[in-house]
């Protein structure tokens, strides 16, 4: 059963990649403007034709696509127009680890702190602490991270001169981006945890556990949390790939040489090889994370079974 399940997921995965790549390829070529339309004056038609020929953009789109797929299958994803001195894979190998490192910090921060604060708010619910935490969480969700980023720079760099406004390579430089980037996911996690824990606390098994004489902290950690984690998985799904592919705002504002900005600059510059690379990367990351969260459901929730039919 499990083998068949994995096979079907695998086929679905490949089909997704094909569909995404075809769509992205067609869309990016359909958008007006090309990589070599300059902002100054029109290039002489001959010069423009040269450029298109150089990058094989003068061929029909389906020919370009099949060439792309053929080369991609051989590990050649082309040369980014934005950075012609390296390959697309070389660029990804350079910038993605930067984004992953920041993403890992943000995921760790937001899930540990978020979980802790969520539980705290639920356990102390309807107290001033709960109100305060809920208020802060709402603020964290509604204020965009680039605003937080600018606040942090104004306070910590411009006024207090504690930290540089941006850069990469020194652990100190991670402080502001980690805070600015974590606040929103942290707030989301905290709010969801609070609701999930509150619901779980109302469950009959909690009353039973309490009646058996278990200490409240043990009840929360052993029974409540495990049940509360199930909706958290649904939440983790979309959050993690987002954090692991970076944020243009955070990376631009703090001068972080990561992947995030390429999602936007590639499109603005009609950098076709990088558009394809970023789109495919996102597709792969999302597919993997969804597969993983499906597996984790089975591990955490005994009621979920692969191939189980409703009774």
């Amino acid at each position, binding site marked *: 059963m499990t083998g068949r399940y994995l096979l079907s997921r695998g086929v679905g995965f490949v089909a997704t990649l094909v569909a995404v790549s075809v769509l992205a390829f067609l869309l990016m070529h359909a*958008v*007006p*403007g*090309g990589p*070599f*339309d*300059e*902002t*100054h*004056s*029109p*290039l*002489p038609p*001959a*010069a423009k034709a*040269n*450029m298109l020929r*150089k990058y094989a953009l003068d061929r029909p789109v389906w020919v370009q696509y099949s060439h792309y797929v053929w080369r991609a299958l051989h590990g050649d994803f082309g040369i980014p127009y*934005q*950075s*012609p*001195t*390296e390959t697309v894979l070389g660029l990804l190998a*350079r*910038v993605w680890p930067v984004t992953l490192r920041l993403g890992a910090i943000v995921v760790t921060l937001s899930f540990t702190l978020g979980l802790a604060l969520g539980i705290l708010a639920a356990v102390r619910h309807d107290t001033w602490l709960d109100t305060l935490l809920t208020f802060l969480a709402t603020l964290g969700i509604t204020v965009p991270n680039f605003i937080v980023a*600018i606040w942090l*720079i*104004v306070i910590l*760099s*411009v006024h207090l*001169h504690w930290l*540089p*406004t*941006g*850069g*990469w*390579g020194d652990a100190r430089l991670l402080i502001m981006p980690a805070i600015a980037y974590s606040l929103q996911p942290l707030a989301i996690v905290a709010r969801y945890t609070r609701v999930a824990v509150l619901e779980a606390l109302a469950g009959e098994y909690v009353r039973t556990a309490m009646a058996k004489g278990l200490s409240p902290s043990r009840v929360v950690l052993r029974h409540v949390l495990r049940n509360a984690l199930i909706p958290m998985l649904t939440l983790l799904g979309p959050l993690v790939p987002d954090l692991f592919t970076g944020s243009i705002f955070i990376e*631009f*504002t703090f*001068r972080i*040489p990561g992947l995030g900005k390429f999602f936007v*600059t590639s499109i*603005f*510059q*009609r950098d076709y090889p990088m558009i394809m690379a970023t789109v495919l990367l996102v597709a792969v990351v999302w597919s993997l994370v969804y597969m993983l969260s499906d597996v984790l459901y089975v591990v955490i929730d005994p009621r979920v079974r692969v191939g189980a039919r409703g009774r």
Partner: protein
Amino acid sequence: MSVYRSTLLGMAVVLAIGFGGGALGATTNAVGKPLPPDAAPPDQQVLTGLTQPATTLDFFVSVYKRPENIDGNSWSDDLSTPLVRLDKNFALIPAAATSWDVSSDGQTWTFHLDKTQVWSDGTPVTADDFVATFRLGADPKVAWDFAWFFGAIKGWDDAVRGAIPVDQIGVRRGEDPYTLVVTTKAPAPYLPGMMLYSPPLNARALAKYGPFYNTDPKTSVSSGPYVLQEWTKDQQIVLVANPTYRGVKPYIQKVVLKFADLQTEFLAYLSNEVDVAANFSPADLEMIDKTPGLRAQYHQGFGDFRTYYLGFDTMNPPFNNLKVRQAFSHAIDREGLVQAVIKRQGIAAYGFLMPGFPGSHQDDLKSIQAYDPATAKQLLAEAGYPAGQGFPKLELWLRGERALGQAVGNAIAAMLSQNLGIQVDVPNKETKLFMDTLNSHKLQFYMVSYGMDYLDPSNMLGIWVSGGRHAWKNDTFDRLVGTASSMVGSPEKRMAMFHEAEKTLVSDVGFIPIYFVTPGFMWKPYLHGDALTPDKIGVAAWHWPGWDGLSTLHQSVYVTQDVSKYRR
């Protein structure tokens, strides 16, 4: 006790060297240039700036992918010495060429190279380097993004088209390796000015490593004031003064360019991480205005003589009707716009050539499109749209404008609505989409800007010659600009023809000039130097092309001892 004694002794030695050094002779920087008396120590002679992402420092590799923080400050071409440079008065100064002369027919220019110039690997800079560089630019396989620029050179366009080999373009070695001969299609009196854009690549490095050899210190070779020390992709470029440079050596011995989102430039400036800044939001400007300390560091210049204007599709209704265009031109209150919206960042424009640019005659053009709502209404009625009735709903496209440009666009729409009764939406379009539509002449109504490439009216007015990016055609204008551009021998007559052409452009309302950009540049009070003092018309600015090998700015700027109050 002995510890104290040795400490005291050490201090005495340091003091003796410090004072003695001053008495014996000035301190010199890393390349042996004596520093001015008020200069900070050599290790403080560092200049840091932010730049947009870049892939090359070299003009002939890509013009648009070089580091810059605004259009008027390109932070590049420092690894090369062009034939000529610009000083703060926009005068041409000999650089790699010590002199030049032109044949009697005005079509063959001979540049005599400075024989003392060497590359940082010790080999001489020769005409062959320039020839290889220009051939690269004309090579159809290279597809250079500025290939349109050198059309005046004989054979250039044909080579770009692939019709003739690149070795047949009119850029050749003369009788010896230190003579460069440039032949033009027609007389081109502006050619020396164009040769500002001649920073050569090293012919051998180019052949061996390809055009990007200057992105890696291991393959980089320089004939300019700096050499490449570091290029960390997406992070920073570090340049240090070139010890083998034979021109005027810089005081600033290290330049650090950090790749960044330029919206953060002002914050980086305030926190003393960069020494200069040029990107300000309206809120930043308000803060600068209200803070005397900052106000004193803010300097307004010409930038790249950029003009913002409204353009139309004059080939199709409704803008093929001159009266409609005239009505629009009289409905816009430029002075009001400057007062209320643009403020310090521009001055009202009534022509295309900004005051200070060669051939500019603003005063003479002022009345043609003057603000006059009554006349505007009347003209629109005569064109068949009384009080705007029946006029199609318009979109005024903007080209990826930031806050200021959007505010200007919306203010113009409000004026058109108020004065002509015409409803205008103002969509801010993405740059590529905008340019694609503009270049294909499908854009009905838009606001855009243009900044000069070289200091001659043939450049600015040349973009209005039919067949370019604008959907406007006027035979008189085409003829005047064509004749004046290649006129030799009578500069006054030539300028008069350009002025006549500009007048035609304004009278025929080929466009509606809105404002000339006067960009502000901030630099810290500890930056001194002749280049930063007032120019011949009294303007102290970080003049175009900025901290660039094509400029002389780097020759005189240094860091004073005041820097200790700022840098941590």
